[in-house]
């Protein structure tokens, strides 16, 4: 893992000291809220519906055991004993007091973490594939690249007041788990014709009010050219992007309105200058960062205990069927720990759960943890012979739910239970869907399915790219839920199609049940997933299930 150098350490400490003074000046009245707000947002502090919220960056989703323990300590000492992991690999504390936040930031600084640029019109926390450095299908670990971008973008003087926020995601695998096509810039590590690795650069993706799939601006950028090329993109956007209307200010609109060709030409022109300016710095720093991400010393051990447990324990077997992913090292597995126990709040972890995960990462997982954009925790390097003990230990804190990739593994934003921007609740919808499908026993039969719920048009819950997306809206003072179908968050990204009129709060779970029962009826066999059936048959049979009255009228 990356370790702060003296410069990083001094920078974070200095920012925290500045913010402590700013808080003091806000409280003694020498700063107004209008003056203070941009300062607190620069440091990740929001004011939500019921309280402040501190959003802490987890760069590229990677945590050490010590960092996870510190997150637990902070939750206990200054919050309500839990944290909420988000779809951008951050953790949010929902109940800090303004007066405690400087201490919380210092405690984060003690473990080389911060909340800088988790808000505002800046380059936000850089996200990456949560299986980075472990996945069998990976070309190269994307985290050194993400760390390079973090260093370049943090406090970048030219990019502190962009037209709008700016999100970058990186994948090192052709199977895109980092949703790169929904980012302002998506980077995919690819192999060039000579076998060397570089980046396919995508630009202009985004969800929200105007969902767009990112488009390739450059099929191959050499590693040494990455930072000057990114600098060129962001500086062109900084000048060309609209500032007259915040809903038209993201780079996706800039690219859309100007056309990719014009935008690309402007970037190429700017790149001639930035390439000169950067010289070889980008490559030099990247090489140094790469040394921090060396793979752990994997061990060779027999897998007999694992195979025996699978044969003797059906609960363990079922968990290994859903929660494991193929590792690149022989005998190892990637373990996804579900934060979606049926009825739990997606992405929430108690301090006890965090501490247990930290301990288990140390005992069985080379001390590493990851947070996924799907709001689960990953132990990336576990030898299969340790899985029975790990599984047993996870049960202690209710962390052994075997539902990864199933109907109850739902992404949900905080929605109107916390968020000041929300137009409806998302969490209770997720809770009720998970509980309901568990109680009627259909979860396993339905199989692979991505339900994603957002509580407003800004789409933090990625509803556009859910196989089933649910968007909570305020329709004339009543919560209303719109369903989209057929979305796909992978390298083949598809924006889901709106199924029809929205459903009331108490109608949404029955509507999803009708939809999924229809899927079970029409699928060719159990191997055809919901998404595959939708693609084969189109929306009609599913719309008919959602809107039976309309379907009956049409048939009459």
């Amino acid at each position: 893992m990356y370790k702060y150098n003296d410069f990083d350490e001094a920078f974070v400490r200095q920012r925290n000291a500045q913010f402590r003074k700013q808080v003091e000046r806000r409280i003694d009245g020498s700063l107004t809220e209008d003056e203070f707000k941009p300062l607190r947002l620069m440091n990740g502090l929001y004011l939500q519906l019921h309280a402040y919220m501190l959003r802490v960056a987890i760069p590229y989703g990677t945590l050490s055991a010590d960092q996870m323990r510190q997150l637990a300590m902070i939750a206990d000492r200054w919050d309500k004993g839990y944290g909420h992991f988000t779809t951008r690999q951050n953790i949010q504390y929902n109940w800090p007091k303004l007066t405690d936040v400087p201490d919380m930031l210092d405690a984060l600084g003690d473990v080389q973490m911060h909340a800088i640029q988790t808000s505002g019109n800046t380059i936000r926390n850089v996200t990456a594939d949560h299986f980075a450095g472990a996945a069998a299908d990976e070309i190269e670990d994307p985290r050194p690249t993400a760390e390079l971008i973090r260093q370049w973008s943090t406090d970048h003087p030219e990019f502190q007041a962009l037209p709008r926020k700016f999100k970058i995601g990186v994948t090192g695998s052709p199977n895109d788990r980092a949703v790169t096509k929904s980012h302002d810039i998506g980077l995919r590590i690819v192999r060039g014709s000579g076998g060397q690795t570089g980046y396919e650069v995508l630009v202009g993706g985004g969800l929200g009010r105007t969902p767009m799939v990112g488009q390739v601006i450059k099929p191959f950028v050499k590693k040494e050219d990455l930072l000057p090329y990114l600098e060129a993109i962001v500086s062109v956007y900084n000048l060309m992007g609209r500032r007259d209307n915040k809903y038209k200010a993201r780079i996706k609109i800039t690219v859309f309105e100007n056309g990719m060709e014009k935008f690309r030409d402007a970037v190429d022109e700017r790149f001639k200058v930035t390439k000169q300016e950067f010289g070889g710095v980008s490559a030099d720093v990247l090489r140094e960062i790469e040394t921090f991400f060396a793979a752990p010393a994997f061990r060779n051990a027999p897998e007999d205990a694992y195979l025996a447990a699978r044969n003797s324990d059906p609960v363990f077997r079922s968990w290994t069927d859903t929660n494991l992913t193929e590792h690149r090292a022989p005998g190892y597995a990637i373990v996804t720990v579900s934060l979606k126990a049926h009825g739990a709040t997606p992405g929430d972890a108690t301090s006890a759960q965090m501490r247990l995960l930290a301990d288990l990462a140390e005992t069985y997982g080379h001390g590493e943890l990851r947070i996924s954009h799907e709001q689960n925790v990953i132990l990336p390097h576990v030898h299969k012979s340790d899985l029975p003990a790990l599984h047993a230990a996870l049960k202690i804190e209710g962390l052994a739910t075997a539902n990864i990739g199933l109907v109850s593994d739902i992404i949900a934003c905080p929605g109107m239970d916390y968020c000041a921007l929300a137009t409806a609740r998302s969490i209770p919808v997720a809770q009720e869907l998970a509980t309901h499908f568990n109680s009627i026993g259909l979860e396993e039969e339905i199989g692979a399915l991505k339900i994603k719920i957002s509580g407003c048009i800004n789409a933090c819950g990625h509803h556009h790219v859910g196989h089933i997306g649910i968007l909570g809206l305020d329709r004339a003072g009543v919560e209303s839920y719109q369903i989209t179908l057929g979305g796909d968050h992978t390298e083949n990204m598809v924006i889901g199609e709106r199924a029809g009129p929205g459903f009331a709060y108490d109608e949404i779970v029955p509507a999803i049940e009708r939809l999924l029962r229809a899927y079970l009826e029409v699928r060719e066999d159990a191997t055809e997933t919901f998404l595959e059936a939708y693609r084969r048959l189109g929306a009609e049979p599913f719309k008919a299930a959602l809107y039976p009255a309309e379907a009956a009228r049409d048939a009459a």
Partner: protein
Amino acid sequence: MARAFTPKVVTANALIEGDVVYLTADDRWSRDHAEAELIEDEAHAQLRLLKAESQKNIIVGAYLADAKPGATGPEPIHFREAFRTRGPSNYAHGKQEAGHV
């Protein structure tokens, strides 16, 4: 004819805790919606909002929210304001907690 004025309460968040607060008729900030001053006159509402906004060291983000008279005091109209009177639905936190100030 001018549209009837929907009664309002002045609401904000407390500066230190962020907790939802309401301006009372006797110029206190209460954590309880039922204690809020129900303002039935538009001009008076603007004056009360100005009064609230001047208290920058106590509260943040004052605004007028629609309300209606109820059995024990003003009640919210919109569901967002109803959620603000109690806290989140997934945990008994915020105003639902015992001993909440």
